[in-house]
């Protein structure tokens, strides 16, 4: 099937199998390997991306379902070589260790902060509760998102 999607501001057209998962479209067709796969059950959130402004798990959407959509992945967070406030926050607050959950975590946080720019700590914790991290114990991820919220709020 023919699909057209915008990914990180660039338009892509491709003919794909109907069963191709969106995450595999991003990773294998577009070679955007920053979006990861951690489970098969929509549980871990490593594959989270932003589609039409909402954080979604790209392992549970078919590429054809994203037809006509506007996608943001981790590769599109930094603009003109300048890191996004979330990327800066994760670095400053040591919000990542192995880095595998990090792109999904940041994309979820990206959509979350759009809807709730000044969240409480508990709201952040609930906001990322669809994303699993095995390394950090979440403490510094929460701080990283707070950092981004504060930075974005003051800019």
């Amino acid at each position, binding site marked *: 099937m023919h699909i057209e999607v915008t990914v990180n501001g660039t338009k892509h057209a491709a003919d794909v199998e109907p069963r191709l998962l969106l995450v595999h479209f991003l990773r294998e067709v577009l070679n955007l390997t920053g979006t990861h796969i951690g489970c098969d059950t929509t549980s871990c959130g490593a594959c989270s991306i932003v589609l039409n402004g909402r954080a979604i798990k790209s392992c549970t959407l078919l590429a054809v379902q994203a037809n006509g959509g506007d996608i943001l992945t981790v590769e599109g967070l930094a603009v003109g070589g300048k890191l996004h406030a979330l990327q800066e926050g994760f670095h400053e607050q040591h919000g990542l260790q192995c880095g*595998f959950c990090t792109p999904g975590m940041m994309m979820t946080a990206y959509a979350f902060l759009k809807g709730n720019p000044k969240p409480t700590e508990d709201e952040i914790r609930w906001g990322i509760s669809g994303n699993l991290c095995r390394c950090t114990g979440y403490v510094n991820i929460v701080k990283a998102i707070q950092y981004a919220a504060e930075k974005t709020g003051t800019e």
Partner: protein
Amino acid sequence: MAKEIHGMGHSMKRKEDARFLQGKGKYIDDIKLPGMLYLDIVRSPYAHAKIKNIDASKAMAIPGVLAVITGKDLDKYGLAWMPTLMSDKQMVLPIDTVKYQSQEVAGVIAAERYIAADGAAAVEVEYDPLPVVVDPFKALEPDATKVRDDKPSNHIWHWETGDKAATDLAFRNAEVVVKENIYIPRIHVCSIETCGCVASWDSVEGKLTMYMTTQAPHAIRTVIALVAGHLGLSEERIQVISPDIGGGFGGKVPVYPGYVIAIAASVLIGKPVKWIEDRMENIQADSFARDYHITAEIAAKKDGTMQALRFKTVADHGYTDAAANPSKFPAGLFSVCTGSYNFQNAFVEVDGVYTNKPPGGIAYRCSFRVTEAVHAIEQITDVLAHELKMDPAELRSKNFIKPEQFPYKSVLGWEYDSGNYQGALDLAMNMIGYRELRKEQAEKRARGELMGIGISSFTEIVGAGPSKHFDILGIKMFDSAEIRIHPTGKAIARFGTKSQGQGHETTYAQIVAEELGIPAEDIQVEEGDTDTAPYGLGTYASRSTPTAGAAAAVAARKIREKARKIAAYLLEVSEEDLEWKDYKFQVKGVPGKEKTMQEVAFAAYTNHPPGMEAGLEAVNYYDPPNLTFPFGSYICVVDIDKGTGEVKVRRFVAVDDCGNRINPMIVEGQIHGGLTMGLAPALYEGIFYDEQGNIQGGSFMDYMLPTAVETPKWETGETCTPSPHHPFGAKGVGESATVGAPAAIVNAVVDALWHLGVRRIDIPITPWKVWQILNDKGVAG
């Protein structure tokens, strides 16, 4: 402005972050080679069955499916079986019998990932189910179903240590004896990245390049050479590359059948073969952790003096003993189970047992069975406190090994390097406000509310290890560093370990920076490529800092000695006139007459002293003189919901002492993560099997990893008791919290319920389990 050195003790931001933050990490599934094929695996629905027939015709009829590989195919090349680290053997693919549910049965090779999966689904296997034994105690009964035809029984080995007669005597004469059966169930590390590989055989060069999720690339290279040497795979032409690793926790130490099938397929077909397991395969078939059934006893005086310890343990290993332990330690370092206490007598025995379950016995973020040891000693210590109506903190204080007793020789033979257990406990008690909490608990109990306080004052044993005792398949457990200083004063340092999130690219650079005065920013750290890095045993068991980190310091000091000679030559003074101060060579008493390492490095290539070799580099293979013994005291406060049975961790204070900290920010991050992996098995995670050997909890839908919501807001504290034998006094920290935390949580729950007659609850302490207890006691809300 000159760059900061960022040596020891600086919370330098991590150097490796940049690529991970921008989606440029290179993990195994990101590797794509020209002509690459995909492997998918057919797995057994039965826990024990004869394979009557494998019909691959429908799979082979699918366009794009190139081969279906079975155990009979591998057997022709002597590859159907492989040795385990514990001198047992494991099937790569079965020739005729499967021994656990989800076991690999056949490999399907196809041109595309989805087609390989189609092929795996189309392979038809006819099974003849056999009787299943799941319970290790039943497996030990004389008429039990035998798991292994090639073994006399399901009993694998008996291991014991300590003085049995003296310990038994102490128990006979004891004023007080407490005894509990403690089960530590199977759990799974569940790194967010699963395991996988790309095996690439170059038939022209006769070279295998193996990209692989491994924590120990060098050891893997040697294992491949030993296992497949007869097929022409020669160690100098095997390159193992461990790319960025998405979490390891011990789960990426073993050699899984999928890796071997991928190698075999690549050699047979002559193209690169990628294998990436999915999450269910990862949980259901990869190595498990724990599964220890421990009967723990303490003999004590009425005043609380702990005298003797006795542990009898049944270890469920699944169908083969594929534990990841040093070769001489079938039960790992379990004999550290006397813990932080000054026992006079102890006897510990473990019996390994075969069952129809997947093999394993890996760490789950702990050093070789240390969590099992700590979990049991810390729980039974609390039982003793309750039994004697003593405060558990007071009982611990009474029995702690005292600071002046270090180095302390434990009754089971370990020499603890250093410690100040009371210091850590005091700090934890102050931080959490222990006395006030006890008052609050008494008030709440009077009102019928359930609140508990649990302590765990653990001692770990990490950094394996001294070559006298520690080896894996005969290879001594040293680790290595190789440092090369470039003419412009920058450096590259390579190691035999492999970071999986621990931040080696930063902390190793800081160690070298501290020793040589080169900014950490200017030191490139490389690991994980066996063609370039010096040989080492890898990263697990909190060994990187104690071994490879030590090697970095020793290698850097060798460089500094040569640099001193060059500096003396440049300054036209004798070496004795120089002192190393403020990261420079300075002429004593002559301010300003000095040489930086950068100046020396340039001279090492441009103007080195006559008769001296050019260049500035060194290598060290560090054989630690002893293990290191990190410790800490954790205190947990829980509230129990009488209506739902839910255990809510209200506060958790963790005081850790890992000696000198290289990067406090990274250390704290390690502790946060470790605590969460201690919380997980205490309250949420467990893998169980029904009587037919069907796994319960084989996906993330029913194996629950804590999210940010369940995870408490960890509070951390620090004491510092350096290791006296480590080059810069560090001990290792990656696993302490996972080792120490579960017992604190369990002890808090039992503390909340002891007055109702509850002595013990096995983990995971689920709401349903607690509610049943409350209901039985007539207090459920």
